[in-house]
């Protein structure tokens, strides 16, 4: 089924550019923001957020926010997600203020490290509470970086998904496929960063450029409702007579869409074209014709076309695909258990700063999701302690919360 935004909404659904904000969080997020800042016509307000004040001062972003000055003491989170989370929690007010008045927040971060994994879900939650729609653009660590990091990222991803309209996740392993095999490391990383900034630009353009066929926030919202929060991204841009076909081919060939194979899974697909006034109806049809045969039967397609006066004769195609059934499953119960832990530490005021806690990331292993993980029981003490006498039982999961964890901890009620 194909639905196009009715044309009478043309004017109404254009969000003012100022209502769109990009936050880069942690090292990877800062790198993405730096790249966006270096490009012409930065698409939105750029804000750099980090625990590390040196990294912040080096960032070209026009706005900077240091989080967790007390917890992280101006250093990085050192790969400790608990510290990243505690840092964000320390600066809740500032984060909320930063997000207030923002309609669409694009949150860029690399998952698997401390600041990104720990703080991103908190930032997303605050933004959501401040009334913003949150689209996260995140990278997942290379497989070679080890299963601990991977699990930390997966866990952060699952928690992030709860507060985000959608999460565009980019596997670093896939990102290198964007570059030719003989590309230098610098080229490969540059190409990867380029894809990320393209994704950010594409999402901002979708909602901020004057639309021929509008793709408003409302439609984005509808598209992602009830779907797996993870989306996959394909992008192509081409000029010349056959630009529609060429751009589509590029987009479909994107390794991030698993070369188009992901589209066959039932779900929803968003097709967005950006070009100058010369975009023709025939080109839109070409693009759709190219897309349709690859789609699963029950896939719903949303189409939007935006007008970018600076496109200079080139047509850009963005494909976002979100499958209905989650991709690599992250067991929600594991995830929830985990997320409550640092809060617990904070509220109960067990001794020491959050950084003294055992690495949270480790306990993931018990879920059995990744048989290759080397985790052992002694690495999961904290959340289990929070479950007390229920520690050996199946958790009571309701609305994604593990009810076996004390209610006052989950509600963040402070005790004397």
């Amino acid at each position, binding site marked *: 089924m194909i639905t196009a935004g009715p044309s009478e909404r043309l004017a109404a659904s254009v969000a003012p550019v100022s209502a769109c904000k990009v936050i880069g969080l942690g090292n990877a997020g800062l790198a993405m923001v730096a790249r966006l800042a270096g490009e012409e016509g930065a698409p939105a307000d750029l804000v750099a957020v980090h625990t590390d004040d040196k990294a912040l001062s080096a960032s070209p972003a026009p706005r900077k926010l240091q989080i967790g000055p007390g917890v992280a003491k101006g250093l990085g989170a050192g790969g400790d997600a608990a510290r990243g989370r505690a840092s964000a929690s320390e600066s809740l007010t500032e984060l909320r203020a930063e997000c207030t008045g923002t309609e669409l927040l694009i949150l860029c971060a690399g998952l698997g490290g401390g600041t990104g994994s720990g703080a991103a879900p908190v930032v997303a939650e605050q933004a959501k509470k401040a009334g913003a729609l949150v689209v996260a653009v995140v990278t997942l660590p290379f497989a070679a970086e080890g299963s601990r990091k991977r699990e930390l990222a997966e866990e952060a991803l699952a928690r992030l998904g709860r507060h985000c309209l959608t999460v565009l996740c980019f596997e670093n392993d896939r990102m290198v496929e964007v570059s030719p095999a003989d590309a230098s490391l610098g080229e490969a990383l540059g190409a990867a960063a380029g894809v990320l900034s393209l994704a950010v630009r594409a999402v901002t353009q979708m909602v901020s450029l004057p639309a021929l066929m509008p793709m408003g926030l409302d439609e984005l919202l509808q598209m992602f409702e009830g779907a797996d929060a993870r989306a996959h991204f394909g992008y192509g841009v081409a000029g010349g007579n056959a630009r529609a076909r060429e751009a589509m081919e590029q987009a479909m060939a994107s390794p991030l869409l698993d070369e188009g194979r992901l589209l066959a899974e039932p779900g929803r697909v968003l097709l967005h074209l950006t070009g100058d006034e010369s975009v023709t109806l025939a080109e839109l049809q070409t693009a759709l014709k190219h897309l349709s045969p690859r789609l699963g039967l029950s896939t719903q397609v949303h189409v939007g076309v935006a007008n970018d006066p600076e496109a200079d004769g080139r047509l850009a195609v963005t494909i976002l695909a979100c499958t209905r059934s989650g991709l690599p499953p992250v067991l929600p119960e594991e995830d929830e258990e985990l997320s409550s832990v640092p809060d617990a530490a904070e509220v109960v005021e067990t001794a020491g700063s959050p950084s003294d806690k055992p690495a949270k990331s480790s306990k993931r292993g018990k879920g059995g999701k990744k048989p290759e993980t080397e985790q052992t029981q002694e690495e999961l003490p904290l959340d289990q302690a929070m479950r007390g006498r229920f520690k050996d039982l199946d958790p009571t999961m309701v609305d994604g919360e593990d009810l076996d964890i004390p*209610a006052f901890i989950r509600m963040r009620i402070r*005790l004397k």
Partner: protein
Amino acid sequence: MARANLHVGLEIGTSKVAAVIAETRSDGLLRIIGTGEAPSRGVRKGEIVDIGKITLCLTDAVAEAEEKADREITEVVASVTGAHLESLNNRGGIPIPDDRDEIEDEDVHEVEQSALDVSIPAGNVFLHTMVQNFYVDGQEGVSSPLGMIGRKLEAEFHIVHGTKTRIQNSLRCIREASLKVTNVVTSAVASAHAVLDQADRESGVLVIDIGGGTTDYILFRDGSVRQSGVLAVGGDHVTNDISIGLRVPTKWADKLKLEEADVAPGATAARGTVQIEDPTYAGGEIERASLNKVAEARAREIFTLLKRRLQFDRQAQFIGGGIVLTGGTAELKGLAALATDVFGVPARVASPRPLMGPTALFESPRWSTAVGLVLYAQAAQEALEEISVFDRLRSKISRIIPGL
């Protein structure tokens, strides 16, 4: 005395095993003649995790009841609970056979079967089919269709189902104790039998039975069950929260919960401290405000979850009888005030309705499920007898008027 007149209710709860032996006297009234109780071991969140341990507990409880009643029992009606229990409402309908107009018992049975034609998860079994409304030829408000004239009989039912293996596990220990289970009743249904009368059900009421490991709820409107279910959170969670929040051993947490905690709204601002007189515990003083905050947070969460799950706001106007709290955890101080605050309708704590028997039973909400089981068993037997009376009558009449 005929065996059918003896009813035994056996509740295997998370915190205790309770056995109630009752007999139906010749005047039809139920009299409780023996009770037994033993602390549970090997039960978590309403489900049995250690059959060996719990079998010993239930043997103790049954032996105590047998001794008091001076009877030996062989059969019990057992309650089940656990997060695996689910419910739904469904409508069934059948045509009345052409050769007659009058609705017979078998039609009622058949319409019930047609309502069970719903898909439930593989491995689940039906536990209850409770009628809400009958419709004869589309006409609403028929309380009993038997003997009515019509071409079509329809009915709406509240259907409860659960995971077969989990129910079997709950019952296995009873067999281990050489007892036969004649009927299985959900805790919510049993407790409602104990604490409600017909007037309560008619005016609409929500029964919340908070036990040690689970919170079982059942909502009545216009005399029949509309919703029911289980939340696997109970008094144990309050204890656990206190233990973690105030850093006291479980034994003390339990004592603090039972004797000192107050969950009424406003009690979180309580002043003063509670002294713990335990030489092994060095902490000494517990802030009342902290204790109440921890307990209130949990109790409030239970109510808030139920409120959301039941979409209670839409139903509040039909719940003239308010909230009825029962189960062991209903003895938590201030619970009714908290329930009133959360649900916005009056709430009260209820113990089993008085029957003949030891009065201590009817002064504590802890006994609701076990007493409810014998009441349920008696009601089921009466219903059975009614049917057989009707059948006998019909067969007599049909001899007089052939073709009926």
